C-alpha cells in the first residue's frame, strides 16, 4: 500500500478551563479533540463536518502546527509533524498551507498583492527578482487574476477577488496540502460558485490535497472524496462522499443531513429519510450517543470504537 500523504493518529487536544475543579482537586479540561485518526491521500479532498465547537478548526490548527496536540502523532510523508522530531516552520510551510474563511481579515490592508505574495518566497530564499515576478504572475493567472492587479491593495478588490488572493498566497510556496476552513461561507452565492470551481480546477491542475471544513453540506457533497463527521471531539462516522450522503448511518450524521435547507427537498418533501426513524441495531450494537441529548465536552464519553460497516465506511459504536 502506498504511504498516505498525511497521517493523523489518535490526536487529542485538551484546553484547561479557568476555575479548576471542586476544592482545587484536578483541573477541569475541555476535550476539544478526543482521539481522532485519519489519513489523507495525495490529490484527495477530505472534508470535516460537525456542529460548531466540535473541534474541526482545532484539528486543522494542529496539522498546521498552530496548535500543539496534547497527545497523538501527525505524520507527513511518514515524517513527524509534531513532537520532538517536528520540522521547523519553514519546512512545514511547504507541506501545509491554509485558506481562511474571511479574506478581509487574512490580508494585510497596507500590503499590495505583490508584496504579500513575495514575502513568503523571500523567506524561503527565493530572492531573484525575475523568479519572484515570474512566480507571482503565474500564480495570479492560476487563480483567475491578471498580473497587472499585483500592484493593487486588498481594499481595491471585491470579496471574491480577495478570496482568490488568499488562495494565491496559500499556494505560492507550492504546498501539497491545503487546509480550507469555511473557504466560501463569507461569499455571495454567485461568487461562491466561482471559487468552488477554481478550487476544484487547482486541485486537479496542481495535484493538491485538501482538508476542507464547512458547514455547507451541499458544498461538501460537491467537493469531497471522503468525509469525516465529528461530534464533540470524536469522529462518529467516516466514509466516501456517497456513503455519507446516500447512506448516512450514525444518528448525528442523519440529523445533520436532514437539517440541510435544500430547496428541492423543501419543495418536494419526499425521498429524504426520516431522521427520527428507528435505527436497527448494527450487528446487535448501539450508538453511544443514544440518549445523550447534549454531550458534555468536559467528561470523555463512554467507551466506543469506530467499526467498519462497509467498504470505506466506518461508524462509531459502543464497545461490545
Amino acid at each position, binding site marked *: 500500500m502506498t504511504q498516505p500523504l498525511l497521517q493523523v493518529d489518535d490526536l487529542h487536544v485538551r484546553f484547561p478551563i479557568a476555575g479548576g475543579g471542586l476544592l482545587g482537586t484536578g483541573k477541569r479540561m475541555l476535550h476539544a479533540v478526543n482521539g481522532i485518526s485519519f489519513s489523507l491521500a495525495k490529490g484527495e479532498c477530505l472534508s470535516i463536518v460537525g456542529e*460548531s465547537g466540535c473541534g474541526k478548526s482545532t484539528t486543522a490548527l494542529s496539522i498546521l502546527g498552530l496548535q500543539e496536540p496534547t497527545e497523538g502523532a501527525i505524520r507527513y510523508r511518514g515524517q513527524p509533524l509534531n513532537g520532538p522530531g517536528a520540522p521547523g516552520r519553514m519546512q512545514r510551510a511547504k507541506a501545509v498551507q491554509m485558506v481562511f474563511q474571511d479574506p478581509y481579515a487574512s490580508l494585510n490592508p497596507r500590503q499590495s498583492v505583490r508584496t504579500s505574495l513575495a514575502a513568503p518566497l523571500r523567506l524561503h530564499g527565493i530572492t531573484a527578482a525575475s523568479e519572484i515576478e515570474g512566480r507571482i504572475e503565474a500564480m495570479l493567472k492560476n487563480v483567475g487574476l491578471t498580473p497587472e492587479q499585483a500592484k493593487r491593495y486588498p481594499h481595491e478588490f471585491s470579496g471574491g477577488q480577495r478570496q482568490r488572493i488568499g488562495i494565491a498566497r496559500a499556494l505560492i510556496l507550492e504546498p501539497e496540502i491545503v487546509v480550507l476552513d469555511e473557504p466560501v461561507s463569507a461569499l455571495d452565492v454567485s461568487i461562491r460558485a466561482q471559487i468552488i470551481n477554481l478550487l476544484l480546477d487547482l486541485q486537479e491542475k496542481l495535484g493538491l490535497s485538501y482538508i476542507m471544513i464547512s458547514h455547507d453540506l451541499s458544498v461538501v457533497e460537491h467537493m469531497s472524496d471522503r468525509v469525516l463527521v465529528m461530534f464533540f471531539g470524536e469522529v462518529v462516522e467516516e466514509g466516501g462522499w456517497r456513503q455519507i450522503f446516500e447512506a448516512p448511518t450514525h444518528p448525528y450524521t442523519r440529523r445533520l443531513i436532514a437539517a440541510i435547507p435544500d430547496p428541492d427537498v423543501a419543495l418536494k418533501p419526499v425521498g429524504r429519510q426520516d431522521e427520527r426513524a428507528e435505527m436497527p441495531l448494527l450487528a446487535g450494537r448501539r450508538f453511544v450517543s443514544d440518549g445523550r441529548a447534549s454531550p458534555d465536552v468536559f467528561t470523555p464519553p463512554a467507551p466506543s470504537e469506530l467499526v467498519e460497516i462497509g467498504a470505506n465506511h466506518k461508524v462509531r459504536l459502543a464497545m461490545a
Partner: protein
Amino acid sequence: MTAPLLDIRDLRLGVAAGRTVTHPLLKGVSFQIMPGEAYGLVGESGSGKSVTSLAVMGLLKKPLAVSGGEILFKGQNLLSLPKREMRRLRGNRITMIFQEPMTALNPLSTVGRQIAEMFVLHQGKSWDEAHKLAVEALANVRVPNPERRAKNFPHQMSGGLRQRVMIAMALACNPDLLIADEPTTALDVTVQAEVLRLIKELCAARGTAVLFISHDLGVIASICQRVGVMYGGCLVEENETRALFDNPRHDYTRGLLGALPRLGSRSEHGRQRLVDIDSIIADRSKLTETRFIAPRVVEGGQL
C-alpha cells in the same frame, strides 16, 4: 379579494446629499405581502434587500433617505407617519430579527427583562405580569428551563439560544409582520433548522406575515410561499417559490439557481461544473432592464 398587509409601491431611496438623492440604491421597488404570507427576498450582496427592510421599519440612517414611492401598511403610508406613531408600530405591529442577535440585545440587561419590557411598553402590562409572560414567551420558542434562562444575560447564552430570545421578543406582541434579515446565517446547520422551524410554526399559528431575507435559496424555499429576486436595486423577478425554482426566467435568477450545488445532484448526474453567473450574463448593466413579475405579468421586457 383581501387587501395586502404590506404594499410597497415604486420605492426609491438612496444616498442623500442635502435635499437631493445623489446615489440611487433602490430604483423603484414594488411588491406586496398578504396577511399571514411568508415572502422571501433573495439577491446578490448589495442589491438592496436590507435597505428595503430598514425603510419598512423606518430605521434608515443618514445619509440614506427615501426619495419616492409609498410603503402602505394596512393601507396607511408609513413614510408619512409621524415618528411617534412609527415608534408605536415598531416592536408591536412590525418587528424585526437580525443576523447577529447581539446587536439587538442589551448586554447589560437580562433577557427576561428585555422581553418583559415589550409587554410593559406595548401592552401596558405591569412588570410582574410582564415577567410571567416573558418566561412563557421563552417557553414558546422552546428555550429549555425558561425560568432560569430568563435571568441570563445575553453573553451567557449560545448563538442559537440568543436567536430564540430575539424571536421571542419579536413575536411577544403578536405582530402582523415579522421581518427577518438573514436570521440564521450565523448558526450551524442543525441549530438553523430548529430556528427556521420555530419561525415557520409560530408565525403560521399566529397568522403573522413574514418578510424573509436571505441569500440562501434553500432557507427561502423552506419558509416562503413567494419570492422576489433583487438585483442592483430592482426587483427583477417574482413568483411563487415552487414556480420560481422550476422555471426561473430572469438571467440573474437562472444564474443564482445554477450557482448552487444541489444536494443529491452529484449522485444523480456526477459532479457538474457550477454555473458562473458572469458567464451567462453578458452585460450586467442590462440586467435590471428586464423584469418578470409573475404570475404572467411581464414588465419592460419580452418573454
